[in-house]
């Protein structure tokens, strides 16, 4: 992707769509590991998606955390893709159980056409409605940036999140980030490396060893199903980088795209 001399233009109705989503659908957020691309918006396409992750660690206080999501999305137009998600999971530590943790309303907005500028730019916003008593709602937003270089694709997500409601803990914003570099060698399976980090509250940031940071290899692929659409999948193993992070995280993703 490279630069042109044209100017970034605002999408018609983008801000009214965001405002509509904010005021009409106050829902929720949790941590699921997958990279969000600004380019994966297809008008009129339905999508069923599942993301999962599980952590392991010798210290039982850090191991045993799981996250499972079931999501339904639809490409309303060429630049807006909302999704509704059910988040299920188990907290790390002994004696925890798997519970429905929240319902999340997610919105991805494509701000530039793929390949039109030096990098592709999108915006992501979600609201997570917590279903567990005593747990705060959460909202998260930030830019999605992607660039192709030769046969590789590099994607960066930068997010700020904020707890909302009477159950919120420490006030302020939380900064998290995610990165994927993928080598597009085979459609069925392309290798990638990923990083997921959470620096914690922005003022001040926690010491590095107390931040969440995992990194590791991932395989990304897709297979056409003819009239049944397309199946996309990802799987990887991410190593804990900091003292605060579990030593290993397995993550996977399945996505079924259909167009009627």
């Amino acid at each position, binding site marked *: 992707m490279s630069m042109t001399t044209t100017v970034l233009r605002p999408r018609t109705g983008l801000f009214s769509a965001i405002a509509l989503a904010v005021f009409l659908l106050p829902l929720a957020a949790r941590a699921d590991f997958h990279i969000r691309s600004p380019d994966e918006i297809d008008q*009129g396409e339905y999508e069923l998606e599942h993301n999962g992750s599980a952590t392991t660690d010798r210290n039982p206080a850090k191991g045993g955390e799981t996250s499972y999501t079931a999501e339904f999305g639809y490409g309303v137009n060429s630049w807006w893709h909302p999704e509704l998600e059910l988040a299920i999971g188990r907290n790390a530590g002994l004696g925890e159980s798997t519970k429905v943790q929240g319902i999340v309303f997610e919105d991805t907005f494509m701000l530039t056409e*793929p390949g039109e500028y*030096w990098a592709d730019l999108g915006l992501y916003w979600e609201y997570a409605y917590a279903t567990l008593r005593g747990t705060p709602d959460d909202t998260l937003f930030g*830019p999605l940036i992607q660039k192709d270089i030769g046969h590789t694709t590099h994607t960066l997500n930068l997010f700020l999140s904020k707890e909302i409601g009477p159950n919120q803990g420490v006030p302020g*914003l939380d900064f998290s980030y995610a990165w994927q570099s993928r080598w597009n060698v085979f459609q069925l399976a392309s290798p990638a490396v990923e990083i997921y980090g959470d620096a914690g509250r922005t003022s001040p940031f926690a010491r590095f060893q107390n931040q969440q940071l995992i990194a590791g290899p991932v395989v990304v692929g897709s297979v*056409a199903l003819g009239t049944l659409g397309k199946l996309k999948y990802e799987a990887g193993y991410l190593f804990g980088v900091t003292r605060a992070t579990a030593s290993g995280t397995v993550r996977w993703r399945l996505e079924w795209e259909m167009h009627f």
Partner: protein
Amino acid sequence: MRIFILAAALLLLAGPVGPARAQDQPHLTIKNHRFQPERLEVPAGVKFKLMVKNEDDTAEEFESFELNREKVVPPGQEIPVFLGPLDKGEYKFFGDFHQDTAQGVLIAK
């Protein structure tokens, strides 16, 4: 927040700086679930905008793993697909909803 503003500013500032851009816009038409032409010459080494028009009454998806593009073309509409700069060579593309017939190749020269 400053990080986001900085990232957006860098993207905007980088706007005019980039490789050369082709003056002509190559065109593809989808008709009877086939691309016309099925082999299309495009310029190598520059950015260009490929216009894809769907004359069928059902949607099609222009897709190419080699070009890293996947874009729905609604019936009766024309969409831009920004590509390049490409190395000289051949790049396969297909219509994801009618892969048995909608196949084509871009030839970058």
